[in-house]
C-alpha cells in the first residue's frame, strides 16, 4: 500500500514536471516564433512596397539607382535616387573616418595607458553618450555646429560636413565600447612578451595590440557605420536636404533617411512618389543585411 502510494505520488510528480516543462517550452517556442514572424513580415512588407516602384510604376531599376535627377512631382517625373544613396554613403564614411581614430584612441586610453582612472572617467561618459536621443543631437547640431561651420568655412553651415560631424559623435560610443571590449579580452601575456622584448608601449600597441584586435575594431566601426547609415532625424535637421550629389563638404545634400522623413507624410500611399520612398527604405534594409553580413565575416576571422 505504501509502495503504491509512493508510486502514485511519483507518477503525478513526474507528470507535473512534464506539464511545466511542456508549457515552458511551448511558451519559449512561441516567443522565438514571434521573432521569426516579425522579421518575415518586415521583410515581406518592405520588399513588396519597395519593388512596386519598379513593378507597378515601371521605373527602371537602373534609372532609380543611377539616375541623378530627383523630381517626383514634375510634369515629367524622374526618380533618380543616386543623390540620396551617395549622400548616405558619403556622410556615413566621413562619420566613420572622424569617429574611428577618436574612438580607438579613447579605447587605448582606457585600457592601455591609464587603465585605472581612465576607464572610470570615460566609461560612464561614453555610456551616457549612447543614451542621448538623436533629436537632441540634431538640436545641438543645428544650434552649435551649423553656426560654427558657417562662420569658419565657406557655405551656409548646413551641409554634408555638419551631418557627418553630428553622426560621428553619435557613433563614437558604439565604436569605443566594442574596441574596449576587444582590447580587454586580449591575453595579458601577449603584451607582456612584447614588453619583455624591449618594445615601447607604442611599439606594442602598433605592432601587437592593434593587429591582433583589428577584426574586432573593424566590427565596431562597421556597427557604427550601420547606425550612421540608418540615422534619420539628427541628419535631416542639419544636412540641408537638396536632392543633389554635393560638390563640396559644405553644400546641402540629402540622405536616404532624410528624404524619407521629409516626403513620407506628404505623399499618399500607393502613389509613385510614395512608392519610390519605400524603395529607398528597401535599400536601407538591404544595407542593414550587408552590414550584419560584414560583421559576421569579421567575427569569423576573429574566431580563427
Amino acid at each position, binding site marked *: 500500500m505504501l509502495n503504491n502510494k509512493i508510486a502514485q505520488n511519483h507518477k503525478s510528480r513526474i507528470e507535473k*514536471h*512534464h506539464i*511545466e*516543462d511542456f508549457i*515552458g*517550452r511551448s*511558451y*519559449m517556442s*512561441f*516567443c*522565438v516564433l*514571434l*521573432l521569426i514572424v*516579425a*522579421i518575415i513580415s*518586415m521583410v515581406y512588407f518592405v520588399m513588396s512596397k519597395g519593388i512596386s516602384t519598379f513593378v507597378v510604376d515601371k521605373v527602371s531599376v537602373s534609372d532609380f539607382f543611377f539616375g541623378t535627377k530627383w523630381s517626383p512631382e514634375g510634369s515629367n517625373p524622374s526618380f533618380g535616387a543616386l543623390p540620396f544613396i551617395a549622400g548616405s554613403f558619403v556622410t556615413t564614411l566621413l562619420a566613420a573616418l572622424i569617429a574611428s*581614430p*577618436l574612438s580607438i*584612441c*579613447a579605447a587605448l*586610453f582606457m585600457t592601455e*595607458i591609464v587603465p585605472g582612472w581612465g576607464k572610470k572617467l*570615460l566609461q*560612464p*561618459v561614453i*555610456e*551616457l553618450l549612447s*543614451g*542621448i*536621443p*538623436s*533629436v*537632441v543631437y*540634431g*538640436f*545641438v547640431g*543645428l544650434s552649435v555646429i551649423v553656426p560654427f561651420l558657417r562662420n569658419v568655412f565657406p557655405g551656409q553651415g548646413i551641409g554634408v560636413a555638419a551631418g557627418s560631424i553630428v553622426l560621428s*559623435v553619435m557613433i563614437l560610443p558604439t565604436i569605443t565600447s566594442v574596441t574596449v571590449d576587444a582590447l580587454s579580452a586580449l591575453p595579458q601575456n601577449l603584451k607582456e612578451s612584447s614588453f619583455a622584448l624591449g*618594445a615601447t*608601449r*607604442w*611599439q606594442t*600597441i602598433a605592432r601587437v595590440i592593434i593587429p591582433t584586435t583589428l577584426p574586432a575594431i573593424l566590427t565596431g566601426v562597421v*556597427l557604427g557605420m550601420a547606425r550612421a547609415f*540608418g540615422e*534619420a*532625424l539628427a541628419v535631416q535637421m542639419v544636412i540641408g536636404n537638396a536632392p543633389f550629389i554635393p560638390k563640396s563638404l559644405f553644400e546641402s545634400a540629402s540622405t536616404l*533617411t532624410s528624404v*524619407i*522623413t521629409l516626403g*513620407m507624410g506628404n505623399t499618399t*500611399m500607393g502613389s509613385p512618389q510614395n512608392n519610390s520612398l519605400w524603395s529607398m*527604405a528597401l535599400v*536601407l*534594409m538591404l544595407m*542593414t*543585411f550587408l*552590414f*550584419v553580413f560584414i560583421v*559576421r565575416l569579421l567575427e569569423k576571422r576573429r574566431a580563427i
Partner: protein
Amino acid sequence: MKARTVDKIATGIIVTLALLIVAVLAGLLGYILFRGMSHISWDFLTSAPQKIRAGGGVGPQLFNSLFLLVLTLLITVPLGLGAGIYMAEYARPGRITGFIRLIVEVLSSFPSIVVGLFGLLLIVNIFGLGFSLVSGALALTVFNLPLMVRITEQAFRSVPAQQKEAGFALGLSKWKIVTTVLFPVALPAIITGTILSAGRVFGEAAALMFTAGMSSPRLNFSNWNPLSPSSPLNPFRPAETLAVHIWKINSEGLAPDAVQIAAGASAVLVITVLIFNLAARYVGRLIYRKLTASRRMN
C-alpha cells in the same frame, strides 16, 4: 632612443584625443543641461503645451513617454525572457539556432525609420490601430525585443555551470532549474540591461512619428478608466512623446518660447536617461547583494 621619442609622441596624441573626447562630451552635456535647466520647473514638467502663447509645458509628453515605455516593456520583457532563455538553455547549436541569432542581430540593427514605416503600413493602416500608443509600443517592440533576447541570453550564460549541475544532481527538471536556480542569479543582469535598453526606448523619435502620432489629445488626469478616450491610460489614443515633441516644436512650433521649450525638453530627456543609467547600476548592485547575501537553504 628614437623608439622612446616616438612612444612619447604617440602616447601624447592618444591622451590628447581621449581628453578631447571627454571635453567634447562634457561640453555637449553641459550645453544641453545649462541651456535647458533654466527653463525646467515643476510647472514646466506638469503643464500642458501651449500652441501660440508662451509658457507651455511638457506634462502630457513626459507622461506619454513613460507610459509608452511601460507598455513596451510589458510586451517585450515576457517575450524577450522566453526567447532569451530558449537561446541560452534549450537551443542546440545548429543551423536553426544560428538563424535565430542572425534574426536577432538583424532586427536590432534595423534603422528606426524603416521600423517606423513598417509600423505605419502594417500596424497603423492594415491593422487599423491608427496612430496610438499601442502602435508605438508594437513598433518599439521590434527593436527592443532583440535587445531583451540578447540581454537575457547573456545573463543566463554567465551563470556558473556548477549551479546548473547542482540542480541536475538534485534531480530537478530543466524547467525547475531554469526558473528557480538560474533565473534568480541572472536577474540582476537582466534588470540592469532592461533599464539601459529603456533609455533607448525613451529617446526614440523616428519610429514613433509614424506610429504613435504627433498629437496629444486633451488628457483628463482625474480619469483613470483605460477605456475612456480622454483617459491618460487609454492605450488606443494617439500620443506624442517627449522626443517627438522636441522634433515637432523645433520644426512647427508657433509659440514664442519654442526654442527654450525645446532646450528644456532636451534637458529633461537627457536627465531621464542619466537617471536610467544610474538606476541601472544601483538596482543591479542592490538586487545582486540581496540575492547573494540572503540565499539560504529552505
